[in-house]
């Protein structure tokens, strides 16, 4: 069943008064339970695309359909895990996780129960009453994931959530995220510039072209899980994607030097 449909999404940036075409007609069908990774050169508009799906930005033309319904505003049915976590420093860990649930009017006991369940899943049970500055970057990202999952969204959106992590923490979270995906059967769209991340996580990997961005190619990664970072059998996928991406990255560097 098609969960989410992006139809011909076009978006311009305003850059020093010039209008730059960032997304030039993105078409994407996301099936229920898909784990889609979007890779592309930096600045190609993949995060913008995710923001449009989240409803935080509006496309110039085109539309996003969730379960067949048009999306125009942000909503808890599409929760996002941001690159920097975006936890609220004035709230304790547990209150961060409960934030959206409170907004949704869920009673206190139930809120607490849900939040504790996801913090448990993220192995953060000991830190429910900590403030966010007391956590490491990796722990913060786990709280952010717990917060997003607690909303029980239709789709989980992840915008380079592991980019700021050290590689050991990242490897652990890559496995954890796969386990969570299998357990919760969530539909996930995961944006990254890291090819190996996309190969490990995605059952589909979508490659974005350099600006103006379109979908260049899509790969289906049919391989057992949990996939590990050091698994050599993933190399062939890695190289196929790298081959596609190389010319785009070169084009991006050229653009930047202009």
């Amino acid at each position, binding site marked *: 069943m098609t969960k989410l449909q992006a139809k011909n999404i076009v978006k311009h940036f305003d850059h020093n008064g010039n209008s730059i075409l960032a997304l030039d007609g993105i078409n994407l069908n996301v099936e229920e339970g898909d784990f889609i990774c979007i890779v592309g050169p930096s600045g190609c508009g993949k995060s913008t695309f995710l923001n449009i799906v*989240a409803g*935080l930005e509006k496309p110039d033309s085109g539309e996003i359909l969730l379960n067949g319904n048009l999306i125009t505003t*942000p*909503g*808890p049915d*599409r*929760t*996002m895990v*941001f690159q*920097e976590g*975006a*936890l*609220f*420093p*004035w*709230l304790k860990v547990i209150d961060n996780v409960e*934030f*959206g649930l409170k*907004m*949704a009017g869920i009673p206190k006991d139930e809120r607490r129960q849900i939040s504790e369940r996801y913090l448990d899943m993220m192995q953060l049970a000991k830190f429910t009453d900590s*403030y*966010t*500055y*007391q956590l490491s970057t990796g722990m913060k990202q786990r709280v952010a994931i717990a*917060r997003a999952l607690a*909303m029980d969204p239709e789709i989980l959106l992840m915008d380079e959530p592991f980019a700021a992590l050290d590689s050991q923490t990242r490897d652990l979270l890559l496995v954890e995220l796969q386990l969570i995906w299998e357990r919760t059967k969530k539909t996930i769209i995961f944006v990254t510039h890291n090819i190996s991340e996309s190969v490990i996580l995605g059952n589909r990997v979508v490659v974005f072209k350099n600006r103006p961005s379109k979908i260049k190619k899509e790969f289906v990664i049919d391989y057992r899980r949990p996939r590990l970072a050091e698994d050599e059998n993933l190399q062939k996928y890695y190289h196929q994607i790298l081959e596609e991406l190389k010319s785009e990255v070169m084009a991006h560097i050229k653009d930047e030097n202009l």
Partner: protein
Amino acid sequence: MNEKIILKKTSHGSFDDAANAALFLAVFVGIWQIVFMLGIWPKISLPSPLMVAESFVKIIWNHSLPVSIGVTLARLVTAFAVSIALGTLIGLAMIKFKGFGKTLSSFSAGLLSFPSIAWVPFSILLIGFNDFGILFVVVMSSIFSIMISTYSSIRNIPPIYLDAAKNMGAKGFYLFRHVTIPAATPSLIIGIRQAWSFAWHAIIGAEILMSIVGLGHILSVGRDFLDMGQVIASMITIFAIGLLVDRLLLFKLDERVRKKWGLDHHR
């Protein structure tokens, strides 16, 4: 474990601070006493510490000091409350109506640094030689800090907090109450501290020039009667109140928020 160490360090630190302050005070009074004994100035221009202490006893005994403190603080609290309420409202309006906000904030440098005393003649002629005139001076001296800090604190909130909150379904008043306000709080407190110090400057100045009661007034009476003891005693009182309010109230508040946010964590 970690927490214990920090706790120990701070309690030790505050003891050191108190000892240092006491030492500083003793040295200061000592130098004062020595200068007094050297007899460079006549007694009437520079009384000894003991004579000032006697003046303290005198103005406490005849109630003029406690009454003055009460009157001044009552005025100050009233004016400051008006400043915060109005200043916050105008600050919010500046955010809501962008053109208005931009214009007003570009006047901010002039409005912020405008000397409070310069409002006094205007206030006397407009409102009169009364409490309301004094309140006016104090409000005008502190309201711009509140306005500008409300405006800039809210505008400087990292957009990612608002995005994250909207993403979880927050909007309207809920978003304002649970994200905008707390996210702006550390910076708002700085604005309030600044406004408080402007208000404190303003009220003493206004009372010297346009009041028949209050701390500024007993200061000015001391001058009229060539009573330097009373002048210094009033000055010490003004200093002490300013210090106490900032340390015990505003600084504590600031520190609490900074600690919760972890803003001093790496220092």
